[in-house]
């Protein structure tokens, strides 16, 4: 196998591009794809202060590494979710990466700072763990960005993630989610701008990026992920992708180019109703924001 760029020995194949790469040209491909996504979707300005949502996994460490490499001012935020050994190990990965690279990592610990963890919070609120987790993450990243004056929150969602979420939203015609499934959500109503610079890269590429850059990340899965629908959607898409490489890319970018704007009015109508949460001041459509309702239920109404 030879590098498509330099004809030297290749280490990584990317079927979607029908191309192979040596380590040097593969890393360049990743940086170029991120730079292209940032430019095409106008994600970041050179003067922005960015806060990267760091989980200790491959995607978040890779996006942080790439942004810093491209010259952006990017700090990280790690959220301790209280998911047993998994949280301990992933926090360790995040801290080690930040220390090795001399980067600034903020931390929020859900059990210590908010009095509940994801497993018990989800149970108390009768939500599936990933839903309780997702809303907590969004809330705490928004809040940290507001409090510490960041312009933008960066997440490590890659092409596989976005295609799987889109697939799920289309299967169930969740039109309000479709209206918000964009690589950039502009700042509004007290929510910081949110960007996904990895949308042009697949998850196998992000794992390869970390291996080739010598970045240690948590390979173990979160124990809460087992059996969730998202994984099933990924498997289904991977079967289709195997038969015709490039389908995921066409599905997601075709949606952005030709369909996503048909769903935005609905998302906007909802955004117009925003109030302030009586407990934490976050923008919300109800008296208490979803995070504060979760926190109240998790603590049996004592929060």
């Amino acid at each position, binding site marked *: *196998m030879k590098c498509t760029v330099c004809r030297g*020995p*290749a*280490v*990584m*194949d990317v*079927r979607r591009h029908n191309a*192979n790469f040596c*380590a040097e040209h593969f890393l360049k491909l990743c940086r170029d794809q991120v730079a292209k996504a940032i430019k095409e979707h106008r994600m970041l300005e050179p003067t922005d202060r960015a806060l990267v949502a760091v*989980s200790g*996994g*491959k*995607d978040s460490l890779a996006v942080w590494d790439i942004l810093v490499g491209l010259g952006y001012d990017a700090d990280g935020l790690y959220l301790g979710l209280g998911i047993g050994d998994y949280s301990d190990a992933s926090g360790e990965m995040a801290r080690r990466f930040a220390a090795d690279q001399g980067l600034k990592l903020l931390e929020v610990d859900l059990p210590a700072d908010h009095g509940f963890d994801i497993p018990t919070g989800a149970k108390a609120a009768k939500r599936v763990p*990933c*839903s309780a*987790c*997702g809303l907590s*993450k*969004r809330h705490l990243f928004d809040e940290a960005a507001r409090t510490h004056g960041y312009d933008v929150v960066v997440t490590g969602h890659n092409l*596989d993630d976005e295609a799987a*979420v889109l697939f799920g939203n289309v299967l169930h015609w969740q039109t309000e989610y479709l209206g918000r499934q964009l690589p950039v959500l502009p700042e509004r109503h007290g929510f910081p701008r949110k960007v996904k610079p990895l949308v042009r890269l697949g*998850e*196998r590429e*992000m*794992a*390869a990026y970390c*291996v*080739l850059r*010598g970045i240690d990340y948590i*390979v*173990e*899965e*979160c124990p809460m*992920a*087992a059996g*969730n*629908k*998202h*994984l099933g959607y*990924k498997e289904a898409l*991977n079967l289709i*992708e*195997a038969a015709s490489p490039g389908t995921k890319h066409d599905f997601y970018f075709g949606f952005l180019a030709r369909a996503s704007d048909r769903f935005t009015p609905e998302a906007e109508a909802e955004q117009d109703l925003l109030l302030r949460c009586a407990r934490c001041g976050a923008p919300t459509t109800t008296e208490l924001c979803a995070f504060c309702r979760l926190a109240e239920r998790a603590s049996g109404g004592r929060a």
Partner: protein
Amino acid sequence: MQVRLRNPRRELELPGPMRVHALLAQLEIDRETVLVIRSDTIVPGDAVLGDDDVVEIRPVISGGAS
């Protein structure tokens, strides 16, 4: 060769030499869902693994819904 698998962690002993693609086919693993790693770097699919090699087959699909 020694083959290390993750999620869950387990180890297999298989005879070399064998190509990476052949190893994955034998274990019925879709090659788009893993990286094969030897001495901290990626081994391409057409590379031959020797009898003394220690390789890791690392899954790359993560399941978090958000």
